[in-house]
């Protein structure tokens, strides 16, 4: 098991493409996306109930080597600043195939 930083980023679902692009730009190709989430925050509550869909939040979870974490978080900060959301970073051990 190697030590990793467990980063989860929660943003409005239309942000996903920009988010994954940012990850790839930082050489992060491993991530998992949880979709059609609801939530509440400084910008009010998000309900995923608009008839056209796509009004909910998504959570992107990625485990990265500790040294990559800080730069990645800094790259994500502007997205959060502009469009809201939150990013949580914690320590974990990972096992991959």
């Amino acid at each position, binding site marked *: 098991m190697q030590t990793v930083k467990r980063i989860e980023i929660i943003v409005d679902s239309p942000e996903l493409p920009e988010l994954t692009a940012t990850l790839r730009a930082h050489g992060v190709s491993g991530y998992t996306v949880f979709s059609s989430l609801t939530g509440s925050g400084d910008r009010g509550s998000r309900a995923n109930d608009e*008839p*056209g869909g796509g009004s909910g939040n998504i959570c992107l979870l990625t485990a990265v080597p500790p040294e990559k974490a800080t730069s990645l978080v800094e790259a994500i900060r502007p997205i959060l*600043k502009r469009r809201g959301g939150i990013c949580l970073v914690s320590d974990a051990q990972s096992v991959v195939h």
Partner: protein
Amino acid sequence: MDLTLITSNLLNPPVLFFFLGMIACFVGSDLEIPQPIPKFLSLYLLLAIGFKGGVELHKSGLTTEVLIALGAAMLMAVIVPLWTFFVLRKKFDVNNAAAVAATYGSVSAVTFIAAGSFLSQLGIPSGGHMVAAMALMESPAIIIGVALARKLGNPGGAKSSWSHLMRDAFANGSVIVLCGALVIGAITGAKGEKALSPFTSDIFRGMLCLFLLDMGILSAKRLGGIRQFGWFPVGFAVLVPLVNATAAVFLARLIGLSAGDALMFTVLCASASYIAVPAAMRLAIPEANPGLYVTMSLAITFPFNIIVGLPLYMAAINRIWS
């Protein structure tokens, strides 16, 4: 104003299911139609209305009369976001003003569909080219709204490129389905109609009822959220449709539309988008608050048009046309 119009609108099953949805929400029911069912229903409605319009267009053909109507539609789609923007600036910042202007410059397909079912209730015909008019009116307001925001707004934060914007405006899922089905209907004509009408026509009213049930729940749920913004948005969401409707009625008269087409045209101008535009605004003007522009459109203008607008506009048209 003619009472039979009000009653025949209120006796229209789709409108009654809209009320049912609102009531369910007000009595605190747990009733909900979970995603992706509403998305499926809206895709179905766009596909069906587009296809039927295309088939009728196939029959009527592109007469000059049709082209004039389409031109008028384009005209309104350009004027409305412009004039509303400057009204909105009095109270809102550039981004929110631009997003709301785009919302009201574009159209609500379901309001249009409800108007169609209202007309068929009254036995008044309307042409398939009005569907084409709707398709034309979906996107311009998006471009105009974003252009205004970028010209007059503060250039903060990386904005999505213009090419992205064009894509979000013209390749938006609902626009694609509506236009695509329209073209397919126009290509396949009567033969296609024969193959698909049980799906696109027979069960259409029922699917509309189910969708409006969901819309009723949503509108009622959102209604509370508007208070925080004060009375201006509420007044705007009721008065601006009336202004646009008035302009539309006279324009329709000017270009000599039939009474039925005139109602459809009026409803297009009076309605506000809550699918295509919000989807585009979230990407193009993220600083704008969906809680504002979606709520105005979904919780006030939509119910207003469905319940009050339809009979009101019809009454005005009847008076002028007769």
